């Protein structure tokens, strides 16, 4: 039988990493990571604080040398040709990379020169991108005067001014309030729609990563699971039931025969429910009314997926 003509050797992945390890003394920050991200994909690297996301991004982006392992951006070997690799990538750091004493325009002008863009090109692209992010009126304002959300948006504009093929976004929403986090996600969506660039994003707000094409969970530098967000969430069930009770053990014993395994966090138990129909849950609520002090039913999200995986449980209820 002849395989369909998708030839991996002529269309290399946008980002590929094999056996990536980074040790800091006794600490292994990244522990044997393999990644293969096709061109155009929106990829989420998810994990709690300290799980090795930033270290991974910096290795992919030529800034930190892996202890072992190999990274390619397109067909460029990152450790052999770091400058060529950097020409292909944009990186928005977890922390701001702007000069607060300069204006928005001056910052972008500076970034444009650094990427060897002619002044006219950098001026035109800045204008377009600021328009895309609804920031045109901030152009001549000093960066100090921008809100946190605006500043992050400007950081992203700065990171894509040279039209990179691959964009790394390290925690683009960290430290922002909910409306601003939503706005940043909207901006990323617009940018992807316009340029079709490959995007690798990290976040420890796992639940917000559902717009990604594919996510991968890491913990202590190791990959724990990966997949398409909707499929992962579906595997978990249709609903998550959160119940609070003073006597959790009794409640758990009562619900387990019907709902199966649960996770315990403080005085809250999390159960999965596989059916769309809520009548079974309603019945159980009535039956346990004297035990439960709170009862919430909601849709599962990627954070639940991560919690269940981390607890070492099968996703399927």
């Amino acid at each position, binding site marked *: 039988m002849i395989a369909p003509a998708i030839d991996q050797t002529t269309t290399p992945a946008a980002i590929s990493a094999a056996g990536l390890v980074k040790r800091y003394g006794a600490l292994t920050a990244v522990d044997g990571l393999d990644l293969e991200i096709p061109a155009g994909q929106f990829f989420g690297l998810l994990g709690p604080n300290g799980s090795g996301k930033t270290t991974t991004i910096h290795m992919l982006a030529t800034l*930190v040398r892996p202890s072992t392992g190999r990274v390619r951006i397109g067909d460029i070997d990152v450790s052999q040709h770091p400058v060529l690799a950097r020409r292909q*990538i944009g990186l928005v750091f977890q*922390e701001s990379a702007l000069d607060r004493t300069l204006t928005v325009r001056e910052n972008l002008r500076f970034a444009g020169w*650094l990427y060897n863009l002619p002044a006219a090109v950098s001026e035109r692209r800045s204008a377009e991108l600021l328009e895309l992010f609804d920031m045109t009126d901030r152009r001549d304002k000093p960066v100090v005067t921008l809100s946190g959300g605006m500043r992050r948006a400007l950081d992203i504009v700065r990171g894509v001014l040279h039209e990179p093929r691959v964009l790394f976004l390290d925690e683009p929403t960290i430290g922002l309030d909910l409306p601003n986090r939503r706005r940043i996600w909207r901006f990323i969506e617009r940018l992807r729609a316009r340029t079709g660039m490959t995007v690798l994003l990290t976040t420890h707000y796992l639940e917000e990563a559902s717009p990604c094409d594919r996510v991968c969970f890491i913990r202590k530098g190791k990959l724990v699971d990966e997949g398409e967000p909707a499929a992962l969430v579906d595997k978990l069930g249709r609903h998550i039931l959160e119940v609070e009770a003073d006597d959790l053990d009794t409640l758990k014993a009562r619900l387990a025969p019907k709902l199966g395994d649960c996770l315990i966090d403080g005085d809250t138990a999390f159960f999965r429910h596989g059916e769309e129909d809520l009548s079974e849950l309603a019945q159980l609520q009535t039956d346990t009314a004297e035990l439960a002090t709170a009862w919430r039913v909601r849709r599962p999200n990627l954070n639940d997926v991560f919690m269940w995986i981390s607890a070492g449980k099968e996703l399927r209820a």
Partner: protein
Amino acid sequence: MIARPIYAVLEREVVRMLRQKTRLVSAMVRPLIWLLVIGTGFGTVIGESRGIPYQSFLIPGVIGMTMLFGAMLAALTTVYDKESGVMRMMIIAPLPHFWIVIAKVLSAALAAILQALLLIVLLALLGFISAETDFALLALALLITSLACAGIGMLTASFTRTLDNFAAIMNFVIFPVFFLSGSLYPVQNLPEILRWIATINPYTYGVDLLKHAMLGSTTMAADFSRLTDISVLISFTLLAIAISSWRFSRETAYEPMIHRLTGPKR
């Protein structure tokens, strides 16, 4: 290829310098105070130094001072860049990282030259610039002295993690470099140990070259030959750039930028 990134760093330095008016004003006032207060005071005590009035002897020293302070402060913005994050913008740009060091050295030298030129204009208006000045040599001296001062600044910056210890840098780098040079008195008149220190201080050779340029071709005030001055200044600058680039190219140089939130508590 590399011209635009270097221009970016130079332009930013000039924009910031012009915006920080107090930095510019104090760069002019400091040397004038030295010249008028110390120069007049010491002048009455010392009288002549190597056959010229003490105040005139001091002119190359105060121009050197402006360059030293100007270049040091500009080069030390590299530490500010690391702390504030602008350096992140530079290390992710597609250029070998030693160019960042070179660009910062050039921009610090440029800041120093501009300040020195401004001071020279002021001094000329006050009648302190001698008619015997060799302007071609002066131009060369300004250029390579400011580069050497920028080199001192860049070396300091590459061994400094935060600007919290700026006072320490003032006390243990800038002041010693200035005082233990030929700026205030001829090197040959210094006690032996200080003379020895002044001889290994690259800045000494910058001031010496300025003396050659400004105090007349037959001056006795200079301590070394022009050729010695020029070779020492150029060699030192190259060495300083090499060491700073090496310091900078190790990835630990990025740690302060990468580890504000997640890094080990310092």
